[in-house]
């Protein structure tokens, strides 16, 4: 069956460091992969999307890589700030025209001042 795995442990880092979050998937050939941020009690907020034919995407302090051979995406936040503390969700979507998302469980990031 399809599986999406994200680091289950919370990631604790110091302010100013780079946070790296991992998303691995099996039995799936996504057309694209997305990263969302979720704060407690709130809905997911879209951050970045990367397509199967792209290796890397950047947006301000965020960077996503996508390796379809390894079936893995890495999500980086450079110069992290306490305000970056949240749960980060990886979501995959196939070739359906309806863009249904399949989410991982998410990784909680805690950035200490």
């Amino acid at each position, binding site marked *: 069956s399809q599986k999406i795995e994200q680091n289950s442990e919370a990631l604790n880092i110091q302010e100013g460091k780079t946070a790296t979050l991992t998303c691995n998937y099996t039995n799936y050939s996504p057309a694209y992969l997305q990263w969302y941020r979720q704060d407690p009690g709130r809905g997911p907020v879209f951050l970045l999307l990367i397509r199967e034919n792209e290796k890397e995407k950047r947006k301000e302090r965020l960077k996503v890589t996508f390796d379809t051979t390894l079936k893995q995406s890495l999500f980086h936040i450079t110069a992290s700030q306490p305000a970056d503390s949240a749960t980060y969700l990886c979501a995959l979507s196939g070739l359906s025209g309806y863009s*249904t998302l399949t989410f991982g469980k998410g990784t909680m990031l805690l950035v200490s001042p």
Partner: protein
Amino acid sequence: EPEVTQTPSHQVTQMGQEVILRCVPISNHLYFYWYRQILGQKVEFLVSFYNNEISEKSEIFDDQFSVERPDGSNFTLKIRSTKLEDSAMYFCASTGTSGSRATDTQYFGPGTRLTVL
């Protein structure tokens, strides 16, 4: 910036009662979705809706669930006879179109917390 809105923010109901969760998608979007998230678990897809009909649904979306777009702005999720295990956050999402296909980014509402007693 346009956003998806949901009401109510919190709904408490007795087991066996019907509930209707309401969403107002972003105005020019044509694809609508419902997801749910049980406390401590992942966000799970329930149903997608396009052109006034269901386009996809998951195994979770059984006969107890229905969706409707009663007018040009609202999108609702009805649970006919709630069970304890329906307690969760329910998120509505919408996305625009590129040609007839949904575009890639989904915009989520803030959610409705449903508590079934």
